[in-house]
């Protein structure tokens, strides 16, 4: 009885103190609204935070005539979930760009429990997109989730979060995204190279052949369902800093080679194309600055035009 009572108290305090509506993961609500209501023809962008930082949708819209829906939010949700969450909402004539961070070819394929849970807290309707792999991941990391809730409550983390999330230029908040789902709040801010240095690079330990093939098979199944809906799908290598690309070239090139062998839809660039100068990155090896996003978007536009998407009418 003591544990039950304590659980109820902790749970109530947790819900009361946490600023759910202000948090970055709440942007999943806005992105789904956009996905449901954005006018056709659409470009749907599937990826993690790398895509949310890495695209300037107004530029993309202007140059291609397609209306972007940037679903990029957090690679912790996993590629499997990201593919499922857009499927039902796709319409004939849509173009989909799948651009997973390299980690998602490994142990981020089914996401990471705490991130998936946080996403579900903000939009429980996302439950229907979970696969057995996601549920298993949630179950395996269940103690981390419960422990996180306990610690959050006991340390009154909500008070500090409310203060930080009120900062206008803080990128990791719901209001940091524009109307297309692009992360834009950080544009005026200087880079944070110290934060970039903290990261060794993508999680490569689990980038085994078996795991890479699992991700490719998942994307192929998605592409097949898209074809039936008359949706065009393209694969684009995620933008990564050239420094981290060189550090992990061997495994990145393994992913690329496997994709070229087994992926059943068009790859529009190369890992080398997507390796951009380090000073175009904001705070991690995937998160571009405004200038970096512009360059990345222009590259994407160019590649799409070569595929007949958004060809300029003379």
């Amino acid at each position: 009885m003591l544990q039950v009572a304590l659980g109820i108290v902790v749970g109530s305090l947790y819900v009361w103190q946490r600023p759910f509506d202000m948090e970055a993961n709440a942007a999943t609500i806005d992105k789904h609204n956009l996905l449901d209501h954005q006018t056709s023809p659409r470009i749907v962008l599937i990826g993690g935070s790398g895509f949310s930082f890495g695209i300037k949708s107004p530029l993309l819209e202007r140059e291609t005539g397609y209306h972007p829906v940037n679903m990029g939010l957090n690679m912790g949700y996993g590629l499997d979930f990201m593919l499922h969450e857009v499927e039902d909402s796709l319409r004939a004539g849509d173009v989909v760009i799948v651009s997973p961070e390299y980690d998602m070819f490994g142990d981020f394929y089914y996401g990471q429990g705490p991130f998936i849970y946080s996403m579900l807290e903000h939009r429980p309707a996302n439950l229907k997109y979970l696969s057995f792999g996601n549920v298993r991941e949630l179950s395996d990391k269940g103690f981390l989730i419960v422990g996180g809730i306990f610690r959050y409550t006991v340390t009154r983390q909500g008070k500090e979060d409310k203060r930080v999330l009120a900062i206008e230029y803080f990128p990791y908040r719901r209001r940091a995204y524009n109307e297309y789902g692009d992360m834009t709040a950080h544009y005026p801010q200087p880079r944070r190279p110290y934060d970039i240095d903290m990261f060794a690079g993508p999680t490569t330990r689990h980038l085994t052949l078996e795991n890479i093939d699992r991700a490719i098979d998942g994307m192929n199944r998605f592409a097949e369902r898209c074809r039936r809906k008359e949706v065009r799908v393209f694969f684009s290598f995620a933008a990564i800093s050239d420094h981290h690309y060189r550090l992990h070239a061997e495994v990145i090139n393994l992913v690329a080679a496997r994709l070229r062998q087994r992926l059943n839809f068009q790859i529009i660039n190369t890992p080398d194309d997507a390796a951009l100068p380090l000073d175009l990155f904001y705070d991690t090896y995937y998160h571009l600055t405004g200038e970096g996003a512009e360059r990345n978007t222009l590259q994407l536009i160019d590649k799409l035009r070569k595929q007949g998407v958004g060809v300029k009418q003379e």
Partner: protein
Amino acid sequence: MAFTTPTYIIFLAVVFGFYWTVRRRAWQNGVLLLSSYLFYLTWDARFGALLLATGVLDYVVGLGLGRVRRPAVRRMLLIVSLAGDLGALAFFKYFNFFSESFRQFAQSIGWQTDPVLVKVLMPLGISFYTFKSVSYTIDVYRGQIEPTRNLIAYLTYVAFFPQIMAGPIDRSGNLLRQLLAARQFSYPLAVDGCRQMLWGFFKKMVLADNLFPIVDRVFATLTVSTGPSLALALLLFAFQIYCDFSAYSDLAIGAGKLLGFESVRNFAYPYFSTSPAEFWRRWHMSLMNWFRDYVYFPLAGKSASRIRRGAALLATFLLSGLWHGPSWNFVIWGGINGAAVLPSMFQRRKKQIAGKERRILVSPKDLLKMLSTFAFFCLTLVFFRAATLSDAILILKRLFAEALHVRVYRSSLGILHPFNGYPLEKWQLALLLAALVSVEWVQRKYEHPLTLDAWPRSARWLAYTGIISLVLYFGTYIVQEFYYFRF
């Protein structure tokens, strides 16, 4: 399916529910067998067949030994079992080690060879379930137990899911006997199992998993690690490996109790030992007892000379070192410990003072002995933890060369913060380790410290709530595989 995940708790709860719902022993064993194989296959589906083959081989050999009387044929059957089981273990675990060692030896005498190296993955748990199964055929051969005709019970004995990954190495005289007997649900036993599991969760999640990044970082950066920081890392590694391994045993034994089984004890507070010989009677007891019964006694013989007994002891420790992994480091580690135990063979064992396990205060003499035994074990861990022999030598050199550099000691405390966001402050880590030592010292007369039957109910529940809170607060940042899975 790691023990410290909700997935495993749900799995255990489902098995518990089905198991106690079916009343008949045969059905219960069926539930255990299915769940054990399901458990194993979720870890590694590729080697399920090997596990099955090991069990079937020794079951058939056991039956044969039960029927055949001629010594030569019996010996042949035993050899078939040993060759099959230990052959598989040798191939998967040691093939490349011996191949590479042979190449190095050949090179040292001027002979160029190109040995075959195969890309083999070691099946999880093979070191443990092989020893379990081999002990059965040896015991049947020796006439110590009757062979069983119950295939389901035998296969369950080999694959029993709480024990399969990292022991205890529960022998047929204990576990198989219980599998062949009728079982009734025992509430006190089940409660005790839950308590033991709770203690296991605390040791693994709060201590072992949080010590891992500290130790790992120091040993990964050997070239820049100072002697004092290596000494501190070794001390913490001693706690890490004890907490990790004994926690696994607690979780395994606790789960067994939930299912009505009393498993063999595996740890008896080894860091309170007053000599290396006592230490090895308290550390990984099921493994050491296995080596004693199947390696030491056969080698030493019945009325053996001191020299023969000494040689048998050393050989046993060398082999037990090798059991831990395909590396000369482990062999050396085993040898050093064997050499440390050797003198006690020739001393008269002192009578245990009655009630000693209940005393809170320890005599200065005993305290000194405990500390020196612990320090000695920490030193041997250099070979256990170092990746290579040259790394081990480097660590030892640094330890002794910089032991008197007092100024470096203070800066060594920096290792206690291995990364940004590390969950424990230095004082919190110290307090938790002190709590572990204190609780285990005070409760050392019991199999596990959460034997709190003498406490009032409210105090017991307060203690459980406190431990659960500690686990939730400190134990849920980092999830690490159990250390002994690699063996």
